[in-house]
């Protein structure tokens, strides 16, 4: 028996039966991807689908009902709600997706170190993690944004400060299992350095679960961005954003409920698409 047949990574021993075909049978994943594709296309084609400028005020036509010119009517400043919905989606989706990158990298790196090195490194990282999880998600995010001042950069810092813990926990758990497996022990026995084992051998094998979780995390991040926008601590006016749209719609719930409901429906549909993708991926690769 030759050496490559003995020292195999778990990915190599997995029986791969034409993954493309298998994915096509995963209805949950396909439904999520299709829904997300529609949403992404809608926000990307905003200039075509909504010819109005999202920030163009028309004080002679405030709170107008839905019409052929304004499919969802206008808001309290006469701005086209449909245009603001599509352009707002761009901002929320962009922040939602990009804001999970830093927590993913930071949390995964710390999880790798904690799980592989163990000892005092693990103890210190886990104690810090316990402190962060003691704070309610929204309370810590709101408090950090309060301290740093409202705005997009504060949102990124707050989400990174709070969001890394989930990735750290998931990756640490994966590493604790993986480091007892043959391919890691073989790498150690071959005299490879710790950084090389961590980067070249462990990372590709333990990140899958973190990536699956990232789908749910994007949903949570979009909810956080929308919530901060609603509280006036997120993306600042006049930029169209679903949270700030809901904030202005809140005042008109009794007279003009479209303003306070439609952006929320957009959030729910986006969340549904990402949750379906997350569930579909979890079914393919196992739960995080």
């Amino acid at each position, binding site marked *: 028996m030759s050496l490559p047949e003995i020292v195999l990574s778990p990915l190599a021993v997995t029986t791969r039966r034409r993954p493309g075909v298998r994915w096509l049978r995963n209805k949950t994943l396909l439904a999520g991807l299709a829904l997300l594709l529609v949403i992404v296309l809608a926000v990307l084609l905003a200039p075509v689908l909504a010819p109005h400028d999202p920030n163009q005020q028309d004080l002679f036509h405030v709170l107008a009902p839905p019409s052929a010119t304004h499919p969802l009517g206008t808001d309290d400043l006469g701005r086209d709600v449909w245009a603001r919905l599509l352009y707002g989606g761009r901002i929320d989706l962009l922040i939602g997706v990009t804001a999970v990158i830093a927590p993913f990298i930071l949390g995964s790196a710390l999880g790798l170190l904690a799980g592989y090195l163990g000892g005092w490194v693990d103890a210190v990282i886990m104690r810090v993690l316990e*402190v962060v*999880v*003691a*704070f309610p998600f929204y309370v810590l995010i709101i408090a950090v944004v309060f301290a740093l001042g409202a705005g997009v950069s504060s949102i990124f810092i707050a989400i990174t400060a709070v969001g890394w813990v989930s990735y750290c926990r998931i990756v640490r758990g994966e590493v604790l299992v993986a480091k007892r497996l043959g391919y890691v022990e073989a790498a150690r026995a071959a005299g490879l350095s710790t950084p090389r084992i961590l980067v070249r051998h462990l990372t590709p094998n333990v990140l899958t679960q973190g990536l699956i979780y990232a789908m749910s995390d994007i*949903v949570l991040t979009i909810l956080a961005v929308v919530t901060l926008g*609603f509280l006036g601590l997120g993306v600042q006016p006049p930029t169209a954003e679903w949270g700030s749209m809901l904030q202005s719609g809140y005042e008109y719930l009794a007279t003009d409920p479209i303003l306070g409901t439609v952006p929320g429906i957009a959030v729910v549909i986006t969340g549904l698409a990402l*949750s379906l993708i997350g569930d579909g991926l979890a079914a393919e690769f196992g739960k995080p």
Partner: protein
Amino acid sequence: MARYLVRRLLQLIPVLIGITIVVFLLLHLVPGDPARTLLGVRATPARVAALDREWGLDKPLPVQYVDYVGRLLQGNLGSSIYYQAPVTQLLGTALPVTLGMLAMGTVFGIVIAVPLAVLAATRAGRPADQLIRIIPLLGLGMPPFWVGFILLIIFGLTLSLLPVGGYGVTFPQHLVSLVLPALTVAAVMAPILIRSMRASLIEVLRSDFMTAARAKGISRWRILVRHGLRNTLIPTVSVLAVNLGYLLGGTVIVENVFGLPGVGHLLLSGIFDRDFDVVQSVTLIYALLVVIINLAADLAYARLDPRVVLGS
């Protein structure tokens, strides 16, 4: 149990120290001088320096931290600049509102989730199950405050069944005022509960002891309630405890939507009024609540399942 409790309390010490460090540093994250931020750009340097001295901000950071912890240990959470009152007094009025909403929300959440989870688990794979499984997928993507909007439009504005905001004056009015906010909390909690209860109930229903119970001729209802649901309680309490931080944080925004004078409302008004002591203390109280409820959940495991031996 007592030995386990003592050990858990000792383990909490580093976490509590960490929490106080985070809350303490919150004030120091504010760009520039917090005193200048509060007093505004027109304040004279002398006035800013005086406030710095009053807050102890002219001392080295470690000394400030020791002073802060010293004050906390004496039960001094500072005082609100806006309300001109000690923060402990403000929390004394606000905390019952938040805890009342959370308790009522938990009851509503369980009342909504249990029947749906049972229905889905007993009809696993059938249309009813498929339909119920969509609820968590939809629910997890709903902003908590937006759920409040929808309930407000339906029950407050359209049907006029419940008050649209405020807390009332008498106890019955308090209870009625809490219904819509509690339903909002329940709507956020129920999807999480349904998902976890359905999964664990399906597993329990397939287990050998359930087959044995059915073979003994015990009624279907009795099997489900006495044996099935009881065994799903542990994972459910676990899931609730894990998601507690998210749920508790959601109450901040829900209180804001319904104008409830709870801790979350206090936090947000503190933020907008730059009331530093209030923001710091409320953040601290929220973290302590999470720690206490997590400990209570751990202790509850042993009560719910005799197989759990604490500290082993």
